[in-house]
């Protein structure tokens, strides 16, 4: 009972009528880890290191503490909130990462629909399928999904129409998703300045990311962004996703406070194959560009293209899960002023991870990751452009679930 009460208090949803019948469910987790890193100063501390933890962080660290709550307001209406603490010297030590309302009517035909309104991750990542968008295959998600967690949040409305194949004798379904959103005009600033990184450190809604913090959730040009995606699930063994994103930002718009709109567009594709009960294979690819400054007729317009891809294999048996992943990524500045060496980023990474369930509530996780990258701006820090960084983490995780 005390755990339930605590969950309720943390979720901040105790007020109001008495709750019953599984109306409120809360998942909370704490991840504490021992870290050893050879990385240069992490970008989270103002450097150019591509990993979350650098040499100065070696030792015992908080990985993440979070609470995910889901409140059923009516049979078809739910409220969701994700509250996070990362212990990365953030401006807001505890912050909201996602918050949305979902309307999900019972299907009355093979075509079902649902609507989400609020602030949430767009449906691209095939790794982050745990509560609170956590990666279940490794501690650190791929470079591709790291970036999505850092710079993007749908703050608006998402509509999904899904064709349910079972009623027609087909074991699978197809869904179309479309969203309109605002407050994501700065998306692109981080990929242009830093390139890709591999961290389990998504941004939060209010506190920003890094030191000094970059904040991503501002509306600068009063133009909504859009995305549209298609997904296909076949026989519970294959899931494929494609999505086109365009924040439709005006690249010359800025605010008095110095905020700038970045026109960011990309296409993403992904597939997750589960051929047996033990094996999972995931591959994702993304490429696009981001633009800032004067219009296209002006040579000074800054444009950077980027791409990222990864392939992952995961084997599960009993309480164990083993995962291996290879990442590739790159950015290229194709026009605009060069204030120093071009911030073109290219690299690859290898990740090996293991998780061991110690029961329903405790889990051990270990991960080794090595990133090799060439990034010319390192020269201005007195470093060589080509760098190899590695990080080893061993985490103990506690998780609880409460329902009221």
């Amino acid at each position: 009972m005390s755990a339930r009460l605590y969950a309720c208090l943390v979720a901040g949803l105790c007020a109001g009528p008495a709750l019953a019948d599984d109306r409120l469910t809360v998942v909370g987790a704490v991840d504490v880890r021992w870290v050893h890193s050879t990385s240069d100063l992490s970008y989270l501390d103002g450097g150019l290191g591509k990993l979350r933890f650098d040499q100065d962080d070696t030792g015992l660290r908080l990985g993440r503490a979070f609470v995910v709550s889901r409140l059923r307001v009516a049979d078809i209406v739910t409220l969701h909130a994700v509250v996070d603490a990362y212990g990365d010297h953030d401006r807001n030590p505890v912050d909201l990462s996602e918050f949305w309302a979902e309307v999900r009517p019972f299907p009355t035909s093979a075509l079902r629909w649902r609507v989400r309104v609020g602030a949430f991750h767009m449906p691209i990542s095939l790794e982050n399928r745990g509560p609170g968008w956590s990666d279940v295959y490794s501690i650190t998600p791929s470079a591709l999904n790291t970036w999505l967690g850092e710079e993007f949040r749908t703050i608006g409305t998402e509509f999904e129409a899904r064709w349910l194949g079972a009623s027609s004798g087909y074991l699978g379904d197809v869904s179309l998703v479309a969203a309109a959103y605002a407050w994501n005009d700065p998306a692109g600033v981080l990929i242009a300045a830093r390139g890709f990184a591999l961290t389990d450190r998504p941004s939060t809604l209010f506190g920003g990311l890094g030191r000094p913090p970059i904040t991503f959730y501002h509306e600068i040009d009063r133009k909504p962004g859009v995305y549209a995606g298609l997904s296909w699930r076949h026989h519970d063994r294959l899931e494929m996703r494609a999505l086109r994103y365009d924040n439709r930002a005006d690249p010359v718009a800025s605010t008095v406070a110095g905020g700038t709109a970045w026109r960011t567009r990309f296409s993403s594709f992904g597939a997750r194959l589960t051929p047996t009960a033990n094996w999972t294979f995931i591959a994702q690819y993304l490429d696009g560009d981001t633009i800032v400054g004067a219009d296209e007729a002006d040579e000074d317009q800054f444009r950077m293209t980027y791409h990222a891809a990864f392939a992952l294999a995961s084997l599960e048996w009993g309480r164990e899960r083993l995962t291996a992943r290879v990442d590739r990524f790159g950015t290229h500045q194709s026009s605009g002023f060069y204030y120093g060496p071009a911030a073109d980023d290219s690299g690859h990474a290898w990740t090996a991870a293991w998780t061991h369930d110690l029961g329903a509530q405790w889990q051990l996780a270990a991960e080794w990751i090595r990133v090799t990258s060439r990034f010319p701006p390192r020269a201005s820090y007195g470093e060589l452009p080509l760098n190899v960084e590695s990080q080893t983490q061993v985490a103990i995780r506690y998780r609880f679930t409460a329902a009221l």
Partner: protein
Amino acid sequence: MSLLRSSDCERRFGGVAAVGFLIAIVVTAACRAGELTVSVIDPTGHGVADVVVVVAPAGPATSPATPTSPVAIMDQRDRAFSPRILVVRVGTNVEFPNNDTVSHQVYSFSPAKKFQLPLYKGQLHPPVTFDRSGLVVLGCNIHDQMVGYIYVTDAPFFGKTDPAGTLRVPGLSAGEYRISVWSPFIADQASSLTRTVRVDAQAPAASRVQLVDALRARPEPRPPRADWEY
């Protein structure tokens, strides 16, 4: 699988007979009657398990129907329906107890039965009466990957094949019977999945349904991991 096996027919019905005289009369009649074995074989020669088999007399019914409970259970465990496929007679009440760790919202928009049934923890849920024959496809409004099937039949004899792909139907009077089989994993045309067979009261009859098309992939049960969210 067999609802009534001829070899243990007397023994099993012996227990039932103790319950009531009327049932005992039915049992006695059944044990004297003929038996039909239906086999469903895939293109590679292996029996197909968990196939719905319904058997109806081609003419007027003369055999007592398979005794069935007026209540059947379609449970939910590990974010899946259990059993995945249930076959019941028209008029059966089906309970949805939800022995899972999470809530579900079961629904069907199949013509044979449309319903919506939220299954929240700690609540009692009334059974659903399936009063029309036909296939009812079940879904969960919270977990889109959950799919279940309730095959509602007005045939007097029915069941599902065992792991060897066979179903034995005892208690049939002599006569002609129409057999049809169904599974969501059978890809053959429905018209090729019916048979007519003559049952002789003196000797067991058999009918074999040889499938031509490869079976559709059957989702492997995969209990959710503790760190997953669907």
